[in-house]
């Protein structure tokens, strides 16, 4: 039987020291992903460092109108927080669109950033997976690909990133604060996750000895934001496509647009091409469609996920249109 040792970190300093000295250690937050992966024999840590009692649970307003979210804030607390609900509706909606109430009560913000793909081949030890066993190949190619990515994928990996929260964070220019015994640094959310390239096992910019301590959201460019998650069933399913969007319109012209996509790429996909088209364009369905076309221009598909390209375009248009027409979102 595979055994591991469990230590509960009493403070951040101890947690960082432990992770720095143990070569194969993992932090345990809510456990909603790590424990599953350990059961499946995919994650095999020798040491599990329980950080769930560290004092990283605050949601605090920052000077200038931003918000700082502790890494151990539970998903359900985040979604319900008045600051989040009023300034960043897209974040609240994204969190509530994910998982189940039970999971949201356990899952943490930091853990959400680090959750791993739901690729059906990643989970199967008998399948080839470059993410799980670098160099072994990718059984998803030529396999069942309905849930796989169409943007930013490579010949080595076409897995989609599963997070809802991260899509909203990517749209909002969030920054991730990480800490180690070597010090503290900040990583833009859009640079926190890596595209697979030829190294799909390298998923984030986080060093092995670093701990995510908080996520900071800058003051919103607009509070008119929303998250649209498209999935086969009404609840408790991963996104086929999701869109996080914030839109500011003055005199029928787009003056600010923030857009990110989920379910379509190996990382939360900031839709910079679409934003570029939108900025300064008339706030019309035609502009939205042009923006969507621009963003998906580089998409590539497998047999099973071709529909995602058009679905992503349409979901972008529908989400922007809803933002434009629904005054209650303001």
């Amino acid at each position, binding site marked *: 039987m595979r055994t591991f040792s469990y230590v509960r970190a009493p403070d951040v300093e101890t947690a960082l020291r432990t992770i720095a000295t143990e070569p194969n250690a993992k932090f345990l937050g809510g456990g909603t992903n790590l424990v599953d992966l350990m059961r499946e024999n995919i994650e095999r840590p020798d040491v599990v460092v329980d950080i769930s009692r560290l004092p990283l649970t605050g949601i605090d307003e920052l000077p200038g109108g931003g918000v700082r979210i502790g890494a151990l804030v539970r998903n359900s607390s985040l979604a319900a927080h008045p600051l989040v609900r009023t300034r960043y509706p897209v974040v609240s909606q994204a969190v509530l669109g994910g998982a189940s109430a039970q999971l949201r009560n356990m899952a943490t913000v930091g853990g959400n950033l680090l959750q791993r793909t739901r690729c*059906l081949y990643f989970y199967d030890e008998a399948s080839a997976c470059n993410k799980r066993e670098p160099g072994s190949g990718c059984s998803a190619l030529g396999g*069942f690909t309905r849930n796989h990515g169409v943007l930013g994928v490579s010949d080595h990996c076409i897995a989609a990133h599963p997070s809802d929260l991260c899509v909203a964070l990517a749209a909002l220019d969030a920054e991730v604060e990480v800490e180690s015994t070597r010090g503290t640094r900040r990583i833009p959310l859009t640079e926190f996750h890596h595209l697979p390239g030829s190294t799909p096992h390298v998923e984030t910019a986080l060093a092995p000895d670093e701990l995510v301590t908080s996520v900071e959201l800058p003051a919103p460019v607009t509070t008119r934001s929303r998250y649209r998650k498209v999935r086969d069933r009404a609840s408790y399913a991963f996104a086929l496509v999701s869109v996080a969007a914030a839109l500011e319109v003055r005199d029928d012209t787009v003056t600010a647009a923030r857009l990110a996509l989920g379910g379509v790429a190996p990382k939360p996909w900031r839709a910079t091409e679409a934003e570029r088209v939108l900025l300064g364009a008339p706030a019309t369905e035609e502009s939205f469609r042009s923006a969507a076309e621009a963003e998906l221009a580089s998409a590539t598909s497998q047999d099973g996920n071709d*529909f995602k390209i058009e679905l992503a375009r349409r979901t972008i248009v529908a989400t922007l249109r809803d933002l434009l027409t629904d005054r209650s979102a303001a």
Partner: protein
Amino acid sequence: MSTAEDLPVLGAPVDRVDGPLKVTGQAPYPSDVDLPGQAHAALVQSTIAAGRITDLDTTEAEKAPGVLAVLTHHTVPRLPRGPMTSLGVSPPAPLQDDRIRHHGQHVALVVAESREQATAAARLVRVEYAPADPVLDFDDPRAVSVDDPWGLDSHRGDVDAGLASADVTVDAVYTTPDNTNNPLGLFSTLAAWEGERLTVYDATQWPAMVRETLAEVFGVPEVSVRVLSPFLGGGFGAGLRAWPHVILAVQAARDVGRPVKLVLTRPQMFTSVGHRPKGVQRVRLGATADATLVAIEHHSTSLLAVEDDDYEPFAAGSAVAYACPHVVTADRQVRANVPAPVSMRAPAHAQGNFALESAMDELACALDVDPLELRLRNHADVHPALGLPWSSNALRECYAVGAERFGWSRRPARPRSRRDGHWLVGQGMAGVSYPWYQAPSLARVTVTADGGATVASSGMDIGTGTYTVLTQLCAHLLGLPLEQVRSDLGDSDLPEAPQAGGSGLTSALGSAVADACERLLGALLELVRDDPESPLHGSDPEDVVAAGGGLRRRGDPGRGETYAAILARHGRPQLGADGASTPAQPTELGMALAGAFGAHFAEVRVDEDLGLVRVSRVTTVIDGGRILNEKTARSQVIGGVIGGIGMAVFEDTITDPTTGRIANATFGDYLVPVHADVPDLDVTFVGEPDRASALGVKGVGEVGLVGVAAAIANAVHHATGVRVRSLPITLDALL
């Protein structure tokens, strides 16, 4: 002699008698049972779909902590295949040779002190394979096919002539995917040998069959085998066979000389206990301009395992669904390197009805006639093949009541004519003629010194209310309050009953219980009639009724005595009687035996931009004959409709096209409806007691599921104008 009339207990929507046990965690589900000294087992399954095992190294596993034994094809003795059952052959015996027939086939079983140790050691079993190229789908030219596997293909009239004479025809191909039964309760077997006596706690819908199978496979007398399944966390057909893992658990218990418990994992539930097989169906319909059906041709092909059988005559039901002079139905199965399919709630009919009732909707569109009107015009007033009157048939009433409750008359004829914002709203319907099924059954009813009664049967309650309705029935027939009747079920030592499956158990077992009650009352009456001390001494049987916990003079309830008093005076601790029921024979009755009928009316909303399908309303009306308990029957139909929603828009067991692995074998990846997907479901019962059944009962276990997929598909067409002929209907088809 008769029983008390009109006690409110029979037919009443009483709560489940086993409800308190279940909600307090006291009901022993199979995996809850533990025995002293038990060991735990874990399966090793093949990671290829076809080929041979070239090397199987158990050295590391055997050295792992706590490991007691590793069973492989090298260690397991040659075992015979289980017997032919009334549902077909038994699965092949496990671990008999080095051949691999499907991905996920058991190749070893590790037995250890704890489940965790067994699971960990199972990972240490090294298996080397010589893989072969697997056959995974219909179109593989190497695939072996079986035509008319059950002799149910049917021909009536001249279908080509019928089609030629038609003013309007429909010719369409429908596909349905593999679905997995997925009971919530993980299947579990706990086996214990004491000498040649074997006791097995098993997740089965059919304890008597498991007993017979184990006796035959392990070469012991049936009387020395006891199989217990008093509670089950669902089955949907997966519990209708003695699967290889059951045999392995029993073999392991024999090998290690201790009780062995094997609980399947969720992924193993996808490969080890069957599934609803995928199929392709072609339906051709012909009708005259006045919407009279003149031809039905229905061909099906479904997928089958390479060395196992499964009962799936998709097309057979189309021969008797409508009055039509020219009919051909034909079924074919194709063998592939896939796990064995099994009956899954409404086997064959769930799939066949989807094709037929979709085609009927297409025909209605082509004729420009209301879909309900088309069905009424072609209603089978008599059994279409036999020409005999039905033993009961309230299908017209199902349609009428359903249409009224649903508001069908307000449905616009044209597709794509209603919307609510971005949601296109559509309505569709389907009819169901579910087949009759019945098997012989035995039961025993005993009155005891405390004045109460016990029902005893090997038949089991799959979770739908068998405990409750048998208790109600016995209480009604013996004139006892519910709380004085207990039902003991799911124990193969008790009188043999058929499987909880085929929608037939309530009628078969209920009739046997009624027979036992009648015999018991006869025996009691004999006791008192000849007894000068009894207030009923010398009574004519016609003048005695069962009421008030005993026997009473008709019209003079003060004159009589309780069962307790009768037994006490005669010095008997108890008095029991055995009852039996046998299936009715249509030729003797001059009637066609009717199963349940039903009609579903569904409303869907389809997002015009994104293709999302949401079911917003379903009205279901069922003719189930006499309903013994409207509450449990309604729950059963609601469950069926939810299963139908799953089949229509979610459920899809994915086989990897290269390896044959089931790729989505978890509840996170295999989608079933969640609460948010299930609208308020309107269920109504109509009809009269069935004339061919002693109790008037027709089963309602499956009819609720059949037709839902077609009603939803037809509603999607009405909403969007797009005809989706392939399940599940997901947004990709509607973008």
